[in-house]
């Protein structure tokens, strides 16, 4: 066993153990630095693991937890997909924590800051488990920890609005969790396994013999609905705008950048590793995922058009982009998954940057979130203006930025499908146009010289948020330029995930 085989375990346990050990610290800067250090270590180990896997003859490995071997015990699994996703998510968490630090210090009460950072660390840990786990029930347990940690950091602002948003989020999320647990009970009832590989063998046998048809359709449907609710696909999105709109800056960035995607990764692993592409194709759930994705893409953008509140507009844009990801999954081909994976990365890096930039705009404007009050704000805070520009252009899908290759590959996946899902290409184009319709006028207002608002010079953005924005801009351009190796790596990773 080589050194990098232990990395997934360390990546999970380090934030979990440190979340308890940071309790004695009270100083905000110390707490934030320790949390950021942990996230940086997680990201570095993930990329090390990624590089090792890329150069090693094995494509993936499993890591046994506890003393019971495979069909009974608990396992982690690490392959290229797991490594690249955990690395990207830890990086986004790092920059989000860094970029919103000034607002966190202001919004979270002095006596409660250590609790806030405990939750940030728990969130990091549970996110990594969702990515690396090979056991369905472990996935459920950490889904709950993920939800509780996300709710806790959301309510950390302790205003009436955030607490109401948290309750909404909890009530919706709980429904999802319960459906997930019920589905696990059914799946365990028919297969007798909780680990993904043994369950897949049994399911393949059932599919061949035509046994247990209804329970299998039921379980995959329940798993999908649970993830739809938790990652806010359109008919289940009602909790998202409040949660992302009222939270403090770094929490908004974390919630939309990584929290939503952790569940999507888990669903991808369930579809590919438990049911398998062929069986899930016969079970008939994939068209539902595809059509809901299309609905979410258009409706999310249409609702975003009507928003006056800058943070709510970005939040509704998240609904649209989650739709892109689910549309890619709905193709049910390796290339479709790879394109969806690329969009997960592109959206994580763009959306966290948009929220950090919006947070700085709101501070410059003295706390107003209304777009009319923010006219000309990008001239005052130029760096945040450039970051917002890059983020918006990336999400619209302009070449050179992260969103272009992902949209291009989603369209390619649609055409490659064979039957030629032209509706996907048409909706992709319409949705891109709608994206442009709300981002471009907003950008115009932010950069406008005419009837610009007067902004007081009270607020000086701190250096760390500037560094975070610059790094995120670089990451966006990197994702937008080096897409050829990245997509082939994602394709290779997904083809070995099964």
């Amino acid at each position, binding site marked *: 066993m080589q050194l990098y085989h232990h990395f997934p375990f360390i990546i999970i346990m380090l934030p979990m153990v440190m979340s308890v050990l940071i309790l004695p610290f009270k100083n905000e800067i110390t707490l934030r630095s320790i949390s950021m250090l942990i996230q940086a270590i997680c990201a570095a180990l993930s990329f090390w693991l990624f590089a090792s896997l890329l150069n090693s003859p094995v494509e993936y490995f499993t890591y046994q937890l506890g003393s019971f071997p495979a069909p009974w015990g608990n396992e982690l699994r690490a392959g290229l997909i797991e490594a690249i996703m955990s690395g990207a998510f830890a990086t986004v968490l790092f920059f989000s924590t860094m970029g919103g630090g000034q607002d966190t210090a202001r919004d979270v009460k002095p006596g409660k800051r250590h609790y806030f950072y405990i939750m940030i660390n728990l969130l990091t840990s549970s996110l990594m488990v969702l990515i690396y786990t090979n056991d369905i*029930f472990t996935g459920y*347990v950490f889904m*709950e920890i993920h939800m*509780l940690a996300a709710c806790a950091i959301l309510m950390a602002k302790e205003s009436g*609005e955030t607490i109401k948003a948290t*309750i909404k989020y909890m009530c919706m999320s709980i429904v999802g969790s319960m459906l997930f*647990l019920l589905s696990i009970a059914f799946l*365990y009832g028919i297969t007798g396994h909780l680990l993904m590989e043994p369950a897949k063998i049994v399911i393949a046998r059932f599919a061949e013999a035509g046994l247990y048809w209804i329970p299998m359709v039921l379980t995959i449907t329940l798993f999908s609905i649970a993830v739809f609710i938790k990652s806010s696909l359109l008919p289940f999105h009602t909790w998202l705008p409040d949660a992302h709109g009222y939270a403090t800056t770094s929490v908004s960035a974390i919630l939309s950048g990584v929290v939503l995607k952790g569940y999507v990764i888990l669903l991808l692993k369930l579809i590919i590793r438990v049911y398998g592409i062929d069986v899930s194709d016969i079970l008939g759930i994939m068209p539902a995922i595809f059509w809901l994705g299309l609905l979410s893409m258009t409706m999310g953008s249409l609702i975003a058009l009507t928003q006056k509140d800058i943070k709510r507009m970005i939040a509704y844009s998240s609904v649209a982009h989650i739709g892109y990801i689910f549309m890619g999954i709905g193709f049910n081909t390796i290339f479709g998954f790879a394109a969806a994976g690329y969009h997960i990365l592109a959206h994580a890096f763009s959306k966290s940057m948009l929220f950090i930039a919006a947070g700085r705009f709101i501070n410059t404007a003295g706390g107003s979130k209304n777009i009319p009050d923010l006219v000309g704000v990008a001239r005052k805070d130029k760096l945040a203006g450039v970051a917002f520009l890059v983020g918006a252009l990336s999400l619209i899908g302009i070449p050179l930025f992260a969103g272009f290759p992902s949209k291009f590959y989603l369209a390619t996946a649609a055409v490659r499908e064979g039957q030629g899902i032209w509706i996907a290409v048409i909706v992709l184009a319409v949705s891109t146009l709608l994206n442009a319709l709300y981002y471009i006028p907003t950008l115009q207002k932010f950069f406008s010289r005419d009837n610009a608002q007067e902004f007081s010079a009270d607020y000086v953005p701190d250096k760390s948020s500037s560094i975070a924005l610059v790094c995120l801009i670089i990451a966006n351009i990197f994702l937008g330029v080096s897409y050829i190796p990245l997509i082939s790596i994602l394709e290779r990773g997904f083809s070995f995930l099964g």
Partner: protein
Amino acid sequence: MLEALRSNYIEATALILFGIGLATLLWEKNLIKKIIGFNIMETSIFLFLTAKGYIAGRGAPIITDGITDVEYYINPLPSAIVLTGIVIAVSITAFMLALCLKIYDIYGTLDMDKITVMDMAERSED
């Protein structure tokens, strides 16, 4: 159909309870009732799992009198899942109750409809 119901009456009861819990969670306006609904849902799944793991005529999966033969015990894994599930249910309930305290401090009511009305009135004043 009726025969299937009779042999699986515990699972059927569990699903009916799940429905009751879901309806309570979604349609009740009072937050405490929502929490009760969530607990009914969670407990119904525990009932389902326990019923799945039970094998008639066998004992609880704790080694007694030094007997280690598998034939004497029921399937321990669903019981372990239920135990973990109880811990999760307790933490979610505790968190929700804490949120209820906070929201009662701010709005003076636990009725979500009234809270929404109060918020809208506040916004129209701005």
